[in-house]
């Protein structure tokens, strides 16, 4: 038996993973303005951003099956170095999971706690894209 998630990934993995990355971009669009002081800090909103990263980081790797580069920006390196790609996702996942756990029920208490939780998650965007995305 294959799970429903696997079937969806096989149906249209590019669309699925792009939707997940859009979700992560949306979460960054909340997190960064709060970190920069351009948006008022709100623990529940901060938690929503972290929870989004946690979901994307935990589910995302399933949507890069062999041969699914297509017309996307996914770099060939994903399939040339599957172990490296797996490790990069694992790093993202563990940072996001730690942030989610640190958020507690109400979300990080203040901006400083949010920064400490979400900073290590955001670092993964650039470091993973550098190797595994084309632009």
């Amino acid at each position, binding site marked *: 038996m294959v799970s429903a998630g696997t079937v969806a990934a096989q149906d249209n993995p590019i669309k699925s993973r792009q939707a997940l990355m859009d979700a992560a971009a949306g979460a*960054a669009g909340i997190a960064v303005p709060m970190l920069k002081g351009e948006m008022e800090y709100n623990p529940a909103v901060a938690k929503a951003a972290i929870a989004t990263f946690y979901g994307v980081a935990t589910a995302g790797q399933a949507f890069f099956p062999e041969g699914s580069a297509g017309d996307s920006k996914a770099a060939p390196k994903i399939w040339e170095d599957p172990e490296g790609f797996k490790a990069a996702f694992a790093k993202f996942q563990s940072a996001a999971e730690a942030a989610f756990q640190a958020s507690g029920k109400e979300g990080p208490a203040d901006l400083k706690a949010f920064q400490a939780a979400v900073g290590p998650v955001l670092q993964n965007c650039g470091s993973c894209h550098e190797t595994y995305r084309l632009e």
Partner: protein
Amino acid sequence: MRRILYAGVALAVIAGAVAWFLSAPRPLDESVLAGLQPADATRGERVFWAGGCVSCHARPGAEGDAQLELAGGLGLGSPFGTFVAPNISPHPTDGIGSWSELDFVNAMMRGLAPDGSHLYPAFPYASYGRMTPQDVVDLFAFIKTLPPVEGKAGKSDIPFPFSIRRAVGFWKLLYLSDEPVVAFGDGTDPAVRRGQYLVEGPGHCGECHTARTALGGLEYSQWLAGAPSLEGRGRIPNITPSQDGIGSWSASDIAYYLESGFTPDFDSAGGEMAKVVRNMARLPSEDREAIAAYLKAIPPKP
């Protein structure tokens, strides 16, 4: 008949002599160093990150302090062959440790090896030629503080006729200039001027973001308007302030992108640009702001 033959030979000899003369290396002499302040490694480090030296000259995949081992080895694909970045660590035989200051200035600003032979413009001296000699000697002083690394990088793979190094001399006649690319009038904001220097000189942004001619020189009429990726798939984006470019980005959007890799839509830079961002993040914020000011001030291109 014989007279025509003599004339033909004479013409060929003259043409050959002219070609030899035109393709000759044109090094700078000692006078370029006159009047400079003593080289300063601290200032040179800022030039080092502005130039993004590690993107090509660190070992491929190196991170953190390992990036400061300038062992070379990255292969740059192009229609003219694959160019392998050399070891530029201060190792006396495998790197550039035994070079003089003037050797380094001539490599950076004139594309010449210490023996006077032409370097290929995969090393972006067409941009570095716009740098100040002071910045170049400061950079050299900084590189000399980095660890020497043993071992030459691999050999470039350049097929005939591009393998004729001397021919690079003709390329330089067409494309090597210390003139600024964009003409700004008097009274231009000093931040725009600083940004111009960083982008057109050490930052060598145009080398990827500007289309090239059939001869591999930059198409200056399309300055920063985007280009096909030299490495194959994908396109390098237009970064002029137009609708197709980044006209909708504010100056602070651009500066933040150069620091963090996040676009205004919170997409995050990948590939070569992610490396550029890592380097740019090391600059003082006023340099990123200057680059942003320049990119808002240049002519928009579709």
